[in-house]
Structure formats: structure tokens, C-alpha cells
């Protein structure tokens, strides 16, 4: 039926299958990333449990408000401790960047671009010509059909030696900051969750006159009967 409406060549069919598989692969990758992030966040959030276990076990925290206040304070202090290391590293990287900039500007008289391919970090990376990527038209859509040409192949540049130090430091700061903030977020969410669950009680299945404990003494009729009466005594 579709063949009557749309004429598909063999290449188009292959392209559709390839695109479909690519989309599925992308969805699976995103699903896996989500699962791993959730698992990491769960693990990071458990730190609040460790920090609050002793005050809770000792019975010193009596109310939801008190728990919330102390847990948030401890969470903030933990975040401050970890994030201050990232900030210290960022300051070190910034100072090195400044020194490198001054050396390049006044000693070598060259413009500084720490990310560039000439005197930057990208000189030791492959660089692709994404602007002129080969394309093909598919149902009126222009899609990439091949890998782009390589503009730069990895090579060592002496003037870029500063960027080889500064750029990894910046990358570590970015990654570390991302993880630290994620941990802070997961701990905050954990505090909210614990605040709601720790001091809550579910009475929906409770009855005021609960006779559940007497069920052992019930006979078939379901009426509570004293133990010595319900069992027949046989005299020998």
C-alpha cells in the first residue's frame, strides 16, 4: 500500500533502516545515562542518612522541623567542604591562565587562544571540518551522509604548553563542579524525602480495638474462645 503512495528506492530503504536503528540506539543510550545518573544520585543522597543516623538513633531529634533544619545545615556544610576544593583548583587554574596569558602577550607577542588548534589545547586533538560535512537529501531533508574532513591532526606545539596544563584543570573543575552540585541536589532531595517519611505514621490499617493478636485462639467460627475450652480434654 505504501509502495503505491511513496516510491522508495533501495538506498532510501537502507537509509530508513539505518536511521531507525540510530534513533533506537540513541534512546537506549539516553535511557542508560538516566539510569546511571539516578543510581549515582541515590548513592550520593544516602550520605544524609549517614550524617543523621547518630542524632536520630540517640533520640535527640524529636520533630520534623528540627530534623529539617539540622539535615539542611549538614548538607550545606558538606557541600561547602567539597565545593571549596573545586573553587581552590579553579583559582589555581585561573592564576596559571593569567601567567600564561602574560607570557604569551609580552614574551612571544602572540594572541592567546587556549582552545584553538594553533597555540591551544586543540592542537593535540583531531579537528573535523563540521561546516563542510558531506550531506545528501532525503525526503527534502538535508542530512549528513559521511564523516567530515580532518582539519587538524594531533601535533605538539611548544607555545601551547600552558594550555596543555590549564585546559585539563578547567575540565576537572567543570566535571568536579557538576558532580558536586549533583551530589548537593541529591542530598537535598533526600532530606525532603526523609522529612516526609521519618515523622509520618500510617494508621489506615490500624483499628482502635485490634483483636489481631487473639487470632491464634479463634476457632473455625471466628469467635474468640478461651484456649482451655476450645481444646477437647480427653480423660484416660
Amino acid at each position, binding site marked *: 500500500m505504501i509502495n503505491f503512495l511513496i516510491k522508495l528506492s533501495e538506498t532510501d530503504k537502507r537509509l530508513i533502516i539505518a536511521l531507525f536503528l540510530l534513533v533506537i540506539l540513541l534512546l537506549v543510550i539516553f535511557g542508560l545515562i538516566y*539510569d546511571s545518573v539516578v543510581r549515582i544520585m541515590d548513592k550520593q543522597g544516602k550520605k544524609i542518612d549517614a550524617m543523621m543516623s*547518630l542524632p536520630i538513633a540517640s533520640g535527640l531529634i524529636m520533630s520534623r522541623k528540627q530534623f529539617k533544619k539540622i539535615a539542611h545545615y549538614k548538607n550545606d556544610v558538606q557541600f*561547602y567542604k567539597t565545593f571549596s576544593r573545586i573553587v581552590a583548583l579553579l583559582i589555581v587554574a585561573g592564576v596559571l591562565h593569567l601567567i600564561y596569558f602574560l607570557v604569551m602577550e609580552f614574551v612571544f607577542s602572540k594572541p592567546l587562544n587556549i582552545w584553538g588548534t594553533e597555540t591551544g589545547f586543540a592542537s593535540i586533538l583531531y579537528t573535523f571540518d563540521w561546516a563542510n560535512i558531506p550531506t545528501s537529501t532525503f525526503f527534502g531533508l538535508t542530512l549528513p551522509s559521511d564523516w567530515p574532513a580532518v582539519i587538524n591532526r594531533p601535533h605538539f606545539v611548544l607555545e601551547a604548553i600552558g594550555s596543555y596544563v590549564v585546559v585539563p584543570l578547567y575540565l576537572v573543575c567543570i566535571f568536579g563542579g557538576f558532580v558536586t552540585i549533583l551530589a548537593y541536589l541529591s542530598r537535598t532531595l533526600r532530606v525532603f524525602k526523609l522529612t516526609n517519611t521519618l515523622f509520618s505514621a500510617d494508621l489506615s490499617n490500624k483499628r482502635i480495638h485490634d483483636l489481631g493478636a487473639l487470632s491464634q485462639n479463634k476457632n473455625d467460627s471466628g469467635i474468640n474462645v478461651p484456649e482451655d475450652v476450645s481444646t477437647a480434654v480427653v480423660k484416660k
Partner: protein
Amino acid sequence: MSSFFKKVGTGFLVIILSPFIVLAYVLFAVYAVLKFIVLWFIAVSKFFVGEKITDPLDIDRKAANLFEEEQAGKKAKQPAPEAGKFAGATINIYSNKPLDEDFNRPISHFDTVNSQITSEDVKQLSEYETKMIENKKTTVTNEVEEDD
């Protein structure tokens, strides 16, 4: 197979909701940075008072004290070991180092620092042992002769 489809579905939802997730994260990151600045000022003010922001809270100290008291109480409740019963442990020590010639015998529990055995002692001991063995032999032979 169902887990695979679940992954695909999760991935689809993540892609659709990704702008909101990223926005929420960025907003929280801004809040976190502002919070860090506030905490830095608090830490500096505490530093000049002679305190640290990372110092344990009063409630933590109280909880730790309570915990220690509880542990001490538990220890006090434990029954004392019965007198006269050996409550020691045997420790076997092995070493690749060659033993001193003067001290080529197993270490005993009853050795003290002052009673280290010299080569002469060892000689005497070995002589005593050989005498004892010879005596035993003679008594055994005597017994055999008597039986005959």
C-alpha cells in the same frame, strides 16, 4: 526484552524532558553557587571567632556522648572473666630469617627476658636428654631380661 523497551521508553522521556531537566539543574546550580558564597562569608566570620564551619554541632556532641555512655554501660554489664581459667591465646610466628645458633629451639610461653639459653645450656640439655634416653633403654632391656 521488556527491560530493553523500558530503556527505550526512558530514553524517549529523557529526550523530551531534557530541556526541563537541564533548566532545573542550572537553576539549582545558580542557587548552589549563591549558597556557597553565603557559606563562605559564614565560614570567614566563624574563623575570626575561632571556630570552624565544619565543627560538629552541639546535637552531634550530645549524641556522641550518649552513645559512649551506652557503650560504657554495656561493657559494665558484661560478666567478669572467671578466675583461674586460662584466657590467653597462642601466637605462632613464622620467619624466613635463619635462627641464631645459640637459640635454635622453639620459643616457649614461659621464657622470660632474663632466662635466655646459651649454647652451654643447650649442650647440657642435649647431654641430659641422651642420658635419659639411655636410661630408658637400659630399663627396657632389664625389663625384657626379667620377663625372660
